[in-house]
Structures are given as structure tokens and as C-alpha cells.
């Protein structure tokens, strides 16, 4: 493992934590029933692009420093759910059906748990 990879690995995890905060905020906004649809869509897109960038950076790491695939896949699912939520509009605001809200919250807690596990393992 070279020095650069060692310094990049915590960066990747930190980026995932930031993304987790962003998705948590978006899940909350989806449940409010008053979030402007265009604003939500832009933030959901931002989440996806940052996730893509993080995953591409992660690919460049050595195998031992890479972030777990299952966590990244969970975040890909989170991104797809957020995009579905962005399509649930009542006029110009986001209003999610109950089943989608339930899955958004469940996926969000799954990602948070996964991140906690990795932090504990790295500590």
C-alpha cells in the first residue's frame, strides 16, 4: 500500500459520511410535503454525481483500502430511491407516497448503520 492510497482512504469514507448527511436531509425534505420539486431534483442529482465521483476515486485505491461494495450499492439504491422521490410531485412540490417514504427511511438507516460499522472497524 503506498502513502497516497493511505491518505485517500479516510477521505473516501469522509465523503460517504457527507453524502449520508445529504441523503438524510433529502429524506427529511421528501417527507415535508412542501419542498420545491426543482430544488429536490437538483440536490438528488448532486448526491448522485458526488457518489459517482467517490466511487470512481475508490476504484483507484488498492483493494485493501477500498470502501465495501455492499455499502456503495446501498448508496446507489438510495440514489435511485431519491430520484423516484423527485418524480413524486404535487404541482411543484414533492409529496412522497407512504410506501416510498418507508423505503427511503429504511434505506437511509441501512446506509447509516453500514457507515457506523465501517467506522468502528477502522477505529
Amino acid at each position: 500500500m503506498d502513502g497516497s492510497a493511505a491518505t485517500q482512504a479516510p477521505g473516501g469514507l469522509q465523503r460517504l459520511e457527507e453524502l449520508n448527511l445529504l441523503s438524510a436531509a433529502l429524506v427529511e425534505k421528501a417527507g415535508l410535503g412542501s419542498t420545491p420539486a426543482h430544488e429536490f431534483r437538483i440536490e438528488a442529482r448532486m448526491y448522485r454525481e458526488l457518489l459517482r465521483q467517490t466511487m470512481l476515486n475508490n476504484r483507484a485505491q488498492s483493494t485493501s483500502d477500498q470502501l465495501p461494495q455492499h455499502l456503495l450499492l446501498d448508496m446507489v439504491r438510495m440514489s435511485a430511491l431519491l430520484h423516484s422521490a423527485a418524480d413524486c410531485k404535487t404541482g411543484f412540490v414533492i409529496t412522497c407516497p407512504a410506501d416510498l417514504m418507508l423505503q427511503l427511511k429504511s434505506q437511509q438507516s441501512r446506509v447509516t448503520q453500514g457507515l457506523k460499522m465501517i467506522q468502528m472497524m477502522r477505529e
Partner: protein
Amino acid sequence: MSVAWQQFATTVWQIVSESAFWVIASLVVGGLVHEFLPSSRFRELLNRKGQGAMLGAILFGAILPICSCGVIPLAISLYRSGVRLGPVMAFAAATPIINPAAVIMSLALLGPQITLAYVTLGLVLPYCLGLIVERWGTPLSAESVAETPDCCSGTPVCESTVTPASSAGLVSRIAAGLRWGIADLGPTIAFYMTLGVLLAGLIAAFLPPAWVDSYLRESTGTALLAAGVFGASIYVCAVAHIPLVASLLATGAAPGISIVFLVTGTATNLPELVALYNTIGRRTVVMYAASLIVGAMLAGVIVNAWLLPGFEPVFDPVRSLDLVDAGERLQPTIGNVLSLVSTAGLVALAGFGTWRWVALRIRRRSTAGGSDDSCCSG
């Protein structure tokens, strides 16, 4: 307003606003189909004996990005134009279940095994369903077409089942087709859809989501049936439904349950069933819904036997995200303004349809000789 009624209002709005554009577009195309198809050679092709028409209807349906509400006018206009019941119902089932965007999304989020099961089921189930309704359903006979105007006075959708004249000019034929689609068929479809949408809204409002969620995580026969019945009653489009199914799968749902929920959820919904029940025929629609649920359940059992125990979809996250992007790009998006205009149009059609339905009932009561059963029902 309580949470349940808020949920009811949200669900009703969402179904109407998401499907409105496709229903209106389908009414326009359906009107043209009704005007031009009966006199064209294409109808003969669709009515030819053998399985070619059924396979053609399924493959054509599988490339259209239309949801289960949007397909109703098109299916009814094909039926009213004299196309065989089997290909019509196979088309009505295949169109919402499967489309290129949904297949790509499934590959991205559910993995290759479930996608293989989904595509196979999306093609085989409509075919079986078409065979079943063609054998035991109620076809639109030539006699009933000829007799319809007398028995159905006041319900223009039935009056127009008579084969249109092909001698008129092109512009007047287009106008006649649009008039049939929008003014005759539109209010009838919108009225029956409204009943289904209200029912779907009540289910969404009063069925606890946690109860559904816990049922979807089991793999028993009862859970498969619950997934099938619940899936058949809710309104979802395939592309938007797949992330939800993927999340369920990731949190422990059996792959068989996922496939049942995915296929029945996208194939049909209460607004569609109520509209078809009152226009194509009761026996046909009961058979259609029952075959769909039972067929999906059987497929669920087979998928569980194939993939359980120890199934976990594994794929490259970057590739998965790229595929999700590609799937979403393939799915046409309707702008806010167009969506609101279409919603207003559909609501107006529903209002007109309701008024027409009430007026017909009052007229029947006042004449006191009429039967309550509409000849529009099978």
C-alpha cells in the same frame, strides 16, 4: 385533516397527475386506431388465427413506455375496433410490465438473475393471459356490435362501436377519430378510472405501510398472495417501482416476493381494472386479474426455489449507477405545465363522464323500463 385523509388526497392526486398525459395521448391514438384500423389490412393481420398476432401485440407493448392507466384507452379502442380479445389483453398486460427503461433499471438495481426472471415473466405471462381470456373471455361479437346502438342509447362509447365509414376524407376521418377518442371514449374511461383511483386512494390511506412492508419480507404462500393482490391494486410505473423493489430486496425480501410485487404492481391497478371491468367485460377482467396474480405467484415460487437460500444481488456499483442513469434517460419525462394541463383535461373528462353516467341513470329510472345492466359491460 387527518394523516390518512392527507395520504388519500396525495395518492389520488399522484395517480391522476402521473397518468393524465399518457391517458390523454392514448385516447388520441385510440381514437385514430378506432377510425382507421377497422378498414385497414392491419386488423386482418391482428385477427389472423395462430399466435403471430399475440406475439406481435406483446412485443409491440414491450417497447412502449406507457403505464397501466395509459394503456386502457388504447386497449379498449383496439377491442372496439374488432381486434381479437387475446391480443388486446396480452397487449394491455405486456405494455406496463416491461419496457426498455425498466429492463435496464432492473439490471442495474435487481441484478441479472431477477432481471432474467422479470423479462421472461413479462413476456410469458401476457401470452398465457391472452390465451386464457381468448378461450374463456367474452369477445365482442359481430351481433353485439350491430345491436349495440339500440341497447345502449345514451352511452356514446357503445354507439360508436359500429365500424366507421372509410369513404370520408382524411381530415374528416381524423376529426371523427379524435371525437370518438376524446368525446366518446374519454369521459367513460375517465369516469371509471375515477372510481378506481378513489378506491386505490382509500387502500393507500388506510392500509398501514408497515403491515405491507412486513408481509413483503416473508416468503410463504400467504405472503406471495398478499404481494400479488396488493401489487395489483396499487398504481406504479415500472421505472419508478424498481428502486422500491430493490430496497425491499436489499433489506431481506425474498426474490420471489420481489418479482410478484414488481410484475403485479406494474401490470395492473384498480383504476385500470375498474375501467376494463365496465367496458371490456366482467368475466374477462376477473379472469385477467386472477391469471395475472396466480401466474405471478407461480413465478414467485419458481424464483424462490431457484435463488433461495443465500441469494444476494452483487454487482459493480459504478456500472450499476451508470445503468440507472441510462434507464432514467430512456424514460420520457413530462414537464410540469404539460402534466398540469393533462391533469385538468382528465379531471374535466371525468366530470363530464360522471354527469353523463348520472343523466343516463335518471333517464332510465324515469322510463322505468330500462335495465340497470349496461350493455357496455360484458
